[in-house]
């Protein structure tokens, strides 16, 4: 693995770490399987990219991306809670609709941001080279978001959100509207995912309607990987774990792509297949371990 590839993996691991925090929030905290992320990641990229092309400040465009992501999440959550559509199906509906919406926002299936202003130009105080600056900016943003999320989950509202995922009957009988909590949590989750999308677009210099495919599977893989490596005893540790998982996942991908097995050489387009297999392995290992123990006993 070259140094560039190594730094590149860190960069991706950190920026997609924001997405993974969002996936953690829905899948783990709320117990709400949400596939909206495959649409809200490119949504964030599309909103941020289109605004920059139209001359809006890059920071402002990220704010708009966050709001757009939250709105997408809210749509999924309302479909699920108020219209009683199964959560998985509700999120697929939103994801599908977002495909068309993202093309509308960009005016075409993809946008280039070459020679357009991005947040990285205005943040380059020390004249760092781009390949170092970008991961550093991502690190700062991810750490801020992680700390804010940790703090939020320990507020009264955050506790109610956690309880909604753990035992909705209990928290309803304590006077909390679980529908409101689900709408809040799924919106927050997709806001983080859209922020990741906007940052990816600005760092890579383009936004593409297809860039969200496989996001949820990568997110899940990162969450599971991080949990098994770091553990999930407390909220603070759990959010740290999923970020570690995100970086390790991207490093593992780079390694996998750099090896040649016989005539078979993996290409970036094999990524989703590798990820899918990885998720299956991660999910079945506990079951297999259990079976092995049973046989031995």
């Amino acid at each position, binding site marked *: 693995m070259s140094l560039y590839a190594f730094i590149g993996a860190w960069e991706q691991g950190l920026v997609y770490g924001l997405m993974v925090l969002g996936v953690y929030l829905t899948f783990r905290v709320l117990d709400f399987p949400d596939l909206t992320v495959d649409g809200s990641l490119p949504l964030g990229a599309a909103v941020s990219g289109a605004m920059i092309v139209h001359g809006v400040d890059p920071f402002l465009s990220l704010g708009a991306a966050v709001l757009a992501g939250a709105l997408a999440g809210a749509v999924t959550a309302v479909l699920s809670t108020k219209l009683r559509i199964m959560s998985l199906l509700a999120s697929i509906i939103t994801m599908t609709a977002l495909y068309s919406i993202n093309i509308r926002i960009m005016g075409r299936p993809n946008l280039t941001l070459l020679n357009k202003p991005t947040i990285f130009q205005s943040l380059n105080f020390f004249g760092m080279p781009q390949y170092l600056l970008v991961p550093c900016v991502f690190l700062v943003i991810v750490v801020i978001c992680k700390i804010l999320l940790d703090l939020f989950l*320990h507020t009264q*509202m955050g*506790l*109610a959100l956690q309880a909604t995922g*753990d035992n909705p009957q*209990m928290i*309803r*009988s304590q*006077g909390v509207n679980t529908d409101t909590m689900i709408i809040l949590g799924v919106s927050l989750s997709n806001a983080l995912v859209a922020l990741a999308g906007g940052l990816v677009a600005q760092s890579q210099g383009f936004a593409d309607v297809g860039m969200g495919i496989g996001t949820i599977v990568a997110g899940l893989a990162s969450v599971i990987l991080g949990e098994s490596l770091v553990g999930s005893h407390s909220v603070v540790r759990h959010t740290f774990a999923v970020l570690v998982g995100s970086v390790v996942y991207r490093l593992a991908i780079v390694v996998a792509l750099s090896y040649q097995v016989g005539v078979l050489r993996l290409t970036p387009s094999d990524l989703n297949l590798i990820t899918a297999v990885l998720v299956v392995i991660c999910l079945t290992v506990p079951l297999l371990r259990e079976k092995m123990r049973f046989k031995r006993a």
Partner: protein
Amino acid sequence: MLEISNLTKTFNRGSINEVTAIRSLSCFVNKGDFVTVIGSNGAGKSTLLNLVAGSYLPDEGVIRLGGRDVTTWPEHKRAAYIGRVFQNPLSGTCASMSIEENFAMASRRGRGVRLKWGVTRRDRAFFKDKLRLLGLGLEHRLKDKVGLLSGGQRQSLTLLMATLRRPRLLLLDEHTAALDPRTAQQVLQLTAEIIREMELTAVMVTHNMRHALELGNRLIMMHQGRIIMDVAGEKKSALSVQDLLHEFSNLRGDEIADDKLLLI
């Protein structure tokens, strides 16, 4: 305090499985009443509590709580007035969260949640005082996850949580049925103490006739969605298990062969 008039609830209406769980039931619970409710399986006891708590909405009838018509209020809104303990010891607490976090949520019952710190130092001192009453040593385990505790411990916690802020009405739905006899007795004793000390209005559903007679100042017997017996005060004190069994056989005729469903 609690006023129920002409309440009717039918499940699976219009299908082959249609069951009328509550049939135009009316009942008035006075402030300070401690009502025990008995009846065989399917009598509608739990459905009645769920209707009062707002877990289900009735087909017909009116429920008034402290003078307010709450018939169409959702469950979380009624929670401001109602404390609940469920039959399943796992239902009343969050397993993945700590004891203090569970208590913190209970201490916000009916007051709404804000973006303020969830568990403060002052909360902790208050929770410790409350937990000490249990005598289970849980006051030293505030940070432990509730999932680590036994069913009896969790049910005791749920009871404390339901009464952490004084509820206008305490609903207990066979809350000792899933516990072993010794633990059940302890939880029951705690229930009686809390209700007496806080002077609560309470409705306790039970399968156990002895418990129904020992506790409370009023006893209601339900059968097929109706109240078939309602005694209070000295008349209740004079009742025995034999009287209750007799009452059952009178009203149910040949169905008394079913009396395994009733625990003595």
